[in-house]
């Protein structure tokens, strides 16, 4: 039996090769610095979910399932529906993933995904109310990472947006006595905008878009920026123990806005046609 490894070990040779490639404006997998891996999205992959999507971003594979159920509002927001986002890197996703409660990486993934949905006002929670203070819709978004080759923030955001955009909510009627009947018929869960994440990694002073696991293990720092359909920034998160210069942040904002446009187009095509490969 081989020893247990705690994280990906990147060889010195690979690192120096990467450095060489970066100098030439290329990466070890042949991509240009700002080139995204092949992205494919399929919706409606889980019949029992209200909405679902499977995203493949290179070798990363993620399924997001949305469930819309009846719930009770929080006391401080009686006129708002609920949103709960969780994320799990399943033990099958890599040799380094472990069963058990979500670790800080998975929690960060869930919370950044949550911010993208919430802050973009993608869902109008005031419309997800059946009776103020009593009955509202609860939107659960659960992200399962099936195979982890990096770029989880981005892939999860595409999966979530695709799942929610195709999700249905059950209709319900409220009787005179206040009792709630959930009907078989459903309506679309209307989404107002498509927030998409773009993640950049800084390796040897160079910025690359959509880092894979190997690149992530070489990076000093990463920056995720989420933009909505109007090109507005709705979420951001720096990660890693390295740093960015002021100018790098400014420049990445510009790049993120540009890349968001292309990605949203791919997602829109998927929503309309059922599946999409780019």
């Amino acid at each position, binding site marked *: 039996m081989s020893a247990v490894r705690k994280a990906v070990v990147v060889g010195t040779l690979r690192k120096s090769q990467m450095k060489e490639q970066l100098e030439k404006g290329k990466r070890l997998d042949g991509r240009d610095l700002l080139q995204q891996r092949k992205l494919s999205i399929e919706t409606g992959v889980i019949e029992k979910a209200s909405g679902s999507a499977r995203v493949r971003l290179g070798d990363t594979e993620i399924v997001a399932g949305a469930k819309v159920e009846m719930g009770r509002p929080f006391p401080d927001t009686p006129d708002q529906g609920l949103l709960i986002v969780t994320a799990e890197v399943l033990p099958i996703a890599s040799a380094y993933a472990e069963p058990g409660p979500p670790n800080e990486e998975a929690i960060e993934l869930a919370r950044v995904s949550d911010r993208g949905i919430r802050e973009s*006002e993608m869902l109008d929670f005031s419309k997800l109310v059946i009776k103020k203070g009593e009955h509202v819709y609860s939107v659960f978004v659960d992200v399962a990472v099936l195979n982890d080759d990096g770029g989880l923030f981005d892939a999860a955001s595409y999966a979530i947006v695709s799942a929610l955009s195709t999700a249905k909510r059950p209709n319900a009627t409220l009787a005179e006595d206040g009792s709630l009947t959930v009907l078989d018929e459903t309506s679309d869960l209307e989404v107002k905008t498509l927030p998409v994440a773009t993640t950049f990694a800084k390796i040897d002073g160079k910025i690359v878009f959509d880092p894979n696991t190997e690149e992530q293990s070489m990076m000093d720092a990463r920056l995720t920026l989420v933009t909505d359909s109007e090109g507005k920034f709705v979420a951001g998160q720096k990660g890693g123990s390295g740093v960015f210069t002021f100018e790098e942040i400014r420049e990445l904002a510009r790049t993120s806005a540009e890349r968001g446009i292309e990605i949203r187009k791919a997602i829109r095509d998927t929503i309309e046609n059922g599946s999409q490969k780019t």
Partner: protein
Amino acid sequence: MTTTLLNADKIRLDGRKLDELRPVKIDVGVIKNADGSALIEFGKNKIIAAVYGPKEVHPRHLTKPDRAIVKCRYHMTPFSTDTRKNPSFSRREIEISKVIRQALEPAIILEDYPRSSIEVYMEVLQSDGGSRCAALSAASVALADAGINMRDLVAGCAAGKIGGEIVLDIDDTEDKEGEADMPTAIMPSLGLVTLFQLDGKLSESEFQKTFEFAIKGCMKVYQIQREALMNKYFGQSEPMQESTE
């Protein structure tokens, strides 16, 4: 929105101008048992940061042979919020502990303390908006107080958007009712960003302006951090200039 966050003269609810920081006060060395500590009062935030270490690593297998590891815990006391906070560790606290750790690590010269751990605890006694930036600013001062080798201090401050205007340093009410919040931390002398988060909605030009505001806020916090350390260690004294005693 029920509250008007800005009046006609663009003055905020608490009387601040758009680019004005809340009152910030830092006391160094407030926890006797700790190797380094600081209390920060940042608006209504009251946060104590304490540093223990460098010390031996527990559990042992986490030891790094060539550098120190940093453990960070940002924790809110149950009485720190308007409605009582559940004392168990929340997902929010886990995330904030992580981003603060990664905001401090670039500043600590970890290679100087191989096989050891540096523990940073931040206890929020009372919370207001911007508690993560306040907490890490206090933690950075506590690290300096502990005499741990650092490349620079780390100063944090958020900027954001309320009532359609870009503003510096969002408080609790503005955070709940406002449009965007951008917590940022920098190493001021080196001009590098070590923490960056955003939630809210900003156009690209607003993004750029908010970022500028955040950096300016960090520089103001940095001045207060420096003064606090100078005051603790040197008081009003002047350095002696004769070369022998």
